[in-house]
């Protein structure tokens, strides 16, 4: 017996379902690109990221009634999508290489948000998985505690990762300075 059949098609339920559905549509419209971008900052493979996100959204659709009651449904969706991505990663050992178009020819000072994204992708590609997630959430402006909650890490670990990410950025921009013309 499935959830759809469990409800009698009376008016009140119908109304509630329509409202839930509308709020879900609104949620997806507002957050789809954001979560996808979060995933893309870790795996560089659009198909894999979309697959993970769709899996997560199917669960979301099924459980929206309770998820929508969360303080921040986005956190739950994002965490679930991230877990789906990690599962896919564990399962198929994805190819961790960055497509060439993501690697800027030279690490010039980014002037637009797109250029900044390119530089960011370059930094991300040099990091281990968990640190990528931490950096991606830093870009979204989350606090240490919020990042820790979503990624299932200790707060101290988030701090460690953050400092390692900064260290990596410094070392990358330094070698790029040396490589470029003086």
């Amino acid at each position, binding site marked *: 017996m*499935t959830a*759809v059949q469990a409800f009698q098609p009376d008016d009140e339920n119908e109304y509630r379902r329509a409202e839930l559905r509308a709020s879900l*549509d609104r949620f*997806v*419209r507002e957050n*789809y*690109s*954001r979560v996808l971008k979060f995933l893309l900052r870790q795996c560089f493979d659009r198909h894999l990221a*979309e697959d993970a*996100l*769709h899996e997560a*959204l*199917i*669960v979301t*659709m*099924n*459980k929206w009634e*309770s*998820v929508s009651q*969360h*303080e*921040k449904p986005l*956190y*739950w969706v994002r*965490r*679930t999508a991230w*877990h789906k991505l990690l*599962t896919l990663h*564990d399962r198929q050992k994805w190819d961790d290489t960055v497509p060439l178009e993501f690697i800027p020819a030279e690490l010039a*000072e*980014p002037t*637009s*948000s*797109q250029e*900044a*994204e390119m*530089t*960011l992708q370059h930094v991300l590609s040099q990091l*281990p998985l*968990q640190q990528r997630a931490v950096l991606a959430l*830093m*870009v979204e*402006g989350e606090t240490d505690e919020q990042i*820790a*909650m*979503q*990624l*299932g*890490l*200790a*707060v*101290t*670990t988030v*701090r*460690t*990762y953050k400092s390692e*990410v900064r260290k990596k*950025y*410094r070392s990358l*921009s330094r070698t790029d300075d040396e490589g470029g013309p003086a």
Partner: protein
Amino acid sequence: MTFDELIELAAQDVPTPLEHARARRAMRRIDEDHERRLSAGAEIFSDVDLRDPLNADFTEAKRIRRAAELRKRGAVVWDADTRRIDWSDEMSRIFGLAPVEAHKSLTSLYAMIHPTHRTAVSRRVRGAWRGQSAAEFVCRIVVRDGSTRYVEVLLEILTDRLGRSTGIIVTGHDATATHKRLQDDKRREIRASSVQQDLAEVDGATGLLSRRAFADEVGRALQTGTGTLLVISAPPYIRLSSDTETGRDEWFGTAAAKVIRDFVDPDPCGLLGPHEFGVLMPYTTFETAAPKADRVIASLRETRFMAGCGRLDAFGGLVHYDYRFPTASIELLLDAETAWRRAKHEDRALHVLRQPPPADERRETCRAGIRNTVKNGRFALYAQPLRDLELNRITRHEILLRVLDDVGRPTPPTAFLDLAEHVDEILAVDKWVINQALRLIGQSPQTSHYQINVSGRSLADPLLLHHLRDAVARYGVDPEHLTIEITETAAIGNLSVARRFADGVRQLGCQLALDDFGTGNTPLGFLTKLPVDLVKIDGSFIHGLPASEALQAVVEGLVQMCRKLGILTAAEYVQDEATLDLLRAYGVDFAQGFHIGEPDQLATSRRRTTSVELNLPPATTLEQRDAG
């Protein structure tokens, strides 16, 4: 740009209308997938934690543990207050323990870490605790049945709301397969750089194949098809006694090789001896090959070289081969060599050997030629110094054989010795060498230690030992200053006979050495089965040693092994100081090579003959057969 500025700029990237459209399309697809799964009765949220991540009811430890479980990671939690440790069922599985029976304590956990990793792991744990930082590492553990696993772990420090450390949580999974794969990838990488890319031995100056490599090439062709083999002798028209020293010989060799290659590329070419070249022409007949050979020889003769070097004389011998009439490659080469001598004798450019001699006749003429060479003493003995690397001075000399060519100049004996071994006449040569060398040593002040070469083939002859004993006594040579080197070119057939010889040599007071160790026919087992005193590492391991880590590994390992067995080591072919430094570092006892000292003539042999060809079958026999 600072890191924070970069993040701020990247965060300004807002979704485009295109992305909104994509979201709408995605929503439709998700809807369909959802419906399909519901109707199929598939489980939708099997590996999903449905709780709100912001739910504050959970302690940090519990939260991390749940996340780990969801990803099928094991978890170990240590509480700083109670000093108690606990681990999840998944971790028990990784440790190879049953979940219920496991006695969970810090000591039992520590005992499961592989002894080689214990110190490193405790150091990492303490470091993480002190710095309140996370640590990631791969740890080797020993499970109950004694087997080893690799666990990839993330070690995190738990804190309370005030930021005080309250415990440690370690999450991890069995990464043995991954670890092994990485290990094997690394190994493959090393292997790819340590294995020689091209097996063909190529002469440095001319770029042609060495005699051995060319013979291999001929051997392969012999088994697969038909064709012709051309051997060209192209010595300088006017020979000077100083040719070797002035480099004129080498210069002519390079020039001739260039001319020949221009004509016959891409057929395989080999440098068979001084001024002697081989060209293999597969799938040709006498009719097609002879004109080509004529052209090559004419070109060699016509070419004028600059700066008073004059010109080349050239003769060619052409033979045919066919896989249906099997011959050995050494015999085919011999036939072709006989053919160019015949051409020279008849003063023609090319001799085409249409009818090869029967095998036994060829063998007999060969043996006669070798015996003749030995009888006439057409050899010269040279002595090359070996430096004792500990004392850093010359303490030994190796006696080297040189065969005198038709004008009485010494040439390297490789081809001659190969042939002598092939037709089983090497014993006569070895006896001559022992006799002459000991005679000359007996006449000298005997201040050095001398090493004499004996073919592995000759060991089977019980008379050789008597011969050696007699010679030592007759010429009054101190046997303690004598080493017999067994050359590796031919396999030592019978080990117990060889052992008897070796024991006899040592009873005499002489020492025993294995020459060219590592490339030829001497298995490692001989090091324990024969009472060897010295191993000479083959020159192919020494040449280019400073540039090759692979060779360094081989030499270093070989030396270590020999030291433990009480065997001295010597390195041939030492050509520069860098090689010498490495050998010294490895603890090699002796070094030999042009960098140490070139061979010097020990003394000329009794008399010199000037007319006869080296191992040439008498021309009359050939003429008789052709006529018949």
